[in-house]
């Protein structure tokens, strides 16, 4: 298992888990979703090929009401 942080919470994911997998686990649709890995954006085109590594900090974000 690989220990990562997702939106500030610790989470264990299987080896080989990609960003795409992570997103799918938290959100049915990926419309309007962005992901940061260790504070840097992961382009949607690289979600499938970017693995989660031990200690990675992920932020999975989407739209909220805002002024």
């Amino acid at each position, binding site marked *: 298992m690989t220990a990562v942080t997702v939106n*500030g919470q610790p989470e264990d994911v299987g080896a080989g888990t990609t960003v795409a997998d992570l997103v799918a686990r938290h959100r049915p649709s990926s419309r309007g979703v962005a992901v*940061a890995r260790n*504070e840097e954006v992961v382009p949607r085109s690289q979600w499938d090929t970017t693995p989660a590594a031990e200690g990675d900090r992920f932020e999975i*974000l*989407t*739209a909220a*009401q805002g002024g």
Partner: protein
Amino acid sequence: MDTPVDPLKIADRELGSRLVLGTGGAPSLDLLERAVVASGTELVTVALRRIDPQAPGSVLEVLDRLGVAVLPNTAGCYTATEAVRTARLAREAFETDWVKLEVIGDDRTLLPDPVELVHAAEQLVDDGFTVLAYTTDDPILARRLEDLGCAAVMPLGSPIGSGMGINNPYNIALIVAQAAVPVVLDAGVGTASDAALAMELGCDAVLLASAVTRAQDPVAMAHAMRHAVAAGHLARIAGRIPRRHYADASTSDEGRPDLLGPDPL
């Protein structure tokens, strides 16, 4: 009573409405949806936040359904670094390179930090963003933001959510007088006359959120703001009468009858 208004052009996008609506503070998605419709806006801001599994529905779905464009903001960022990262994530999430750049310096006033703002704007412009910069009412800062490539400058009337209106109309007029990019009055609008005044000062558009979303009746206030922006814009175009120190009779004395008769001896 619909008026064909000359469209607003920001960067290469034409907008049929000169009102930009923020979505923060709306009591429900249903009220938000109705307010967006009532306002007539074609551009609506959203923030980027952690996904919330409990969230009932999504603001994005509402905006998609209404066909209005999304303007992501960087609300809550105190540094250029955070703001730039937030903008890049927003670009990824919403597939737009437009961003309302907001870098604040203080959590009580939410006033922009001019130094961090300039740094962030430089990076985002370099990075290909269409930057609409939320800024103070400082004309020199506004010009600097324009010079470094912002697509619009968005000076505040007064602090976000304060409803104080436009504290320094003189500065807003200075910004308008010198700007070659659109000027959007952003923050501080409390009621309709504030929005009308912004347009009369020559702003190209008004961005507001709390004034509508936190009004007692958000839909009626959205409607009011739609009229107010049109009113102010038309008044600016129409060319107002000058302020005079004394009266200027609207009724002429010419032909006034003598109804007192001859003086009694």
